[in-house]
């Protein structure tokens, strides 16, 4: 029934850095890492966000300000009621001995995953890449795990791209699964490396979404036509294989895919 709209007051706000916050809500559903919710700012709009943690009914989402909606949410405060529908989609399946690769705010769903993996006493290595120190979230918490970080400007962790770090790590260790989430260019590189070494992957993708429940067709992927909101957002290589639009500009709210002019 949580697919219906319910509003909850914000119970806690954490500012990771300017334009990067976590919001907490007590609510009544259960979810697995990789699933997402639709968040409604009353009178504004509704947008999808990954669950970055859920324990004892306390839901956390972590938002990076990138446009009107995410800017607006930065000014939401304790006690403000926001609408939550969800959880939606298929999340990550738990695998022992995994490599987690997150880019920027893409680390959010992997953070929830890491907590569940740790709780279930699975082995894993967590790589996070970001532009700069301010874009790295959860680093303190994640340092409890085997955690490596890269920043493009070298302000935190190793300088460079997360996929370079991934290359190094994969050269030494072997993994049963690669979990990844982040910008699509990064994901493409992750998939190449995984396939080159025949490591199975589970990757969380993003597309423009409206309904979140598999009706509007907004998030259907060219090729197989699967609905990312229902059949994803986490896809395995089998699911990815049928898709022809990876790396292309995403369809926008009209349903058009911006074409190269």
């Amino acid at each position: 029934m949580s697919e219906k709209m319910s509003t909850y007051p914000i119970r806690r706000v954490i500012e990771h850095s300017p334009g990067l916050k976590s919001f907490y809500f007590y609510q009544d559903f259960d979810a697995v890492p990789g699933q997402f919710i639709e968040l409604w700012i009353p009178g504004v709009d509704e947008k999808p966000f990954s669950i970055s943690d859920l324990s004892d009914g306390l839901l956390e989402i972590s938002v990076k300000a990138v446009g009107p909606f995410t800017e607006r949410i930065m000014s939401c405060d304790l006690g403000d009621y926001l609408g939550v529908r969800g959880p939606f989609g298929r999340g990550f399946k738990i695998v022992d001995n995994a490599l987690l690769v997150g880019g920027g705010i893409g680390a959010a769903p992997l953070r929830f995953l890491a907590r569940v993996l740790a709780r279930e006493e699975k082995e894993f290595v967590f790589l996070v890449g970001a532009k700069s120190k301010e874009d790295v979230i959860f680093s303190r918490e994640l340092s409890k795990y085997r955690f490596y970080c890269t920043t493009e400007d070298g302000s935190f962790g190793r300088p460079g791209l997360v996929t370079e770090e991934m290359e190094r790590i994969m050269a030494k260790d072997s993994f049963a699964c690669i979990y990844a989430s982040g910008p699509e260019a990064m994901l493409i590189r992750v998939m190449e490396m995984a396939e080159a070494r025949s490591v199975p992957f589970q990757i969380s993708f993003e597309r423009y979404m409206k309904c979140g429940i598999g009706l509007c067709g907004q998030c259907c992927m060219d090729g197989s036509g699967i609905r990312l909101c229902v059949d994803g957002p986490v896809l395995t290589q089998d699911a990815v294989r049928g898709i022809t639009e990876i790396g292309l500009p995403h369809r926008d709210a009209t349903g058009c895919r911006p074409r190269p002019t």
Partner: protein
Amino acid sequence: MTERQTDIEIEFLHMRLCSPLVLASGVLGLSSSSLKRVADAGAGAVTTKSCGLEPRAGYVGPSIIPVSHGMLNAVGLSNPGVKEMVREVADYRARCRTPIFVSIFGGTVEEFGDVAEAVAQAEPDLIELNVSCPNVYSEFGSPFGADIDATAAITRRVKQRVGAIPISVKLTANCLSIGQTAKVCEQEGADALTAINTIGPGMLIDLNVRKPVLSNLCGGLSGPAILPVAVRAVWEISREVSIPIIGTGGVTTAEDALQMILAGATAVGIGSGIYYQGLEIFDKVNEGVQRFLQEKGLGSLDEIRGTAHE
């Protein structure tokens, strides 16, 4: 793709559909891949999202929300525009043989004609005229579908401009007499009728923030809640016309689909049902209809179509 049961095949206009089930407009109808996936799931035909002359982003969210016994939606006719749609249809055609119906809308009679003509290039199996979208009131005023003369004018104009391509007029139950409206459409040359669009509209208000949830404030009601209204509408239409009807509204089971057929529908639209039953709804309903025919010793749906009128 599951093996098709030949006995639930129907003749619709000059097509043979492997199933009476048609994907309703607005659901999974934006892209060729999505439409093909629904065809593969067992639909006898698929309908695109309604498209207009230009791309439209539609309303901000929330635009589609489940309520207790149905869905409310006000997507605001978001669509990629007719040019893009023509491309998607061509792409679909190249990959899939299941018939495709293209739904269109316009702000004026003339615009309906323009969009129809543009869409005709894609040679769809049918053009569906969405004269009944209840959710763009502020922009377009009350739906044409509530006005029998406007509906007639649109039907006539589109028919003049698309030549041999069959057209179906999508009717709303929010009018004085859906039977009379249907009759007029038939007189003006409609080849088929689709009924019904969403009803209401309806509103959901959140108690904490004390605001309507849909960004458009209200939206059309679809899903199980509206089935009895849709069945009645199909029954009324079928009493007035002899052209085929795509009976749509609230269908989620084989029993629902069979009610539509007994009321006089030739084909049966499925939209919100995909939310309630998943894409498997097409296979499930096909199988249920098949089983019903077998149990009753019937060869095809022709033997029972409209028999609830007797």
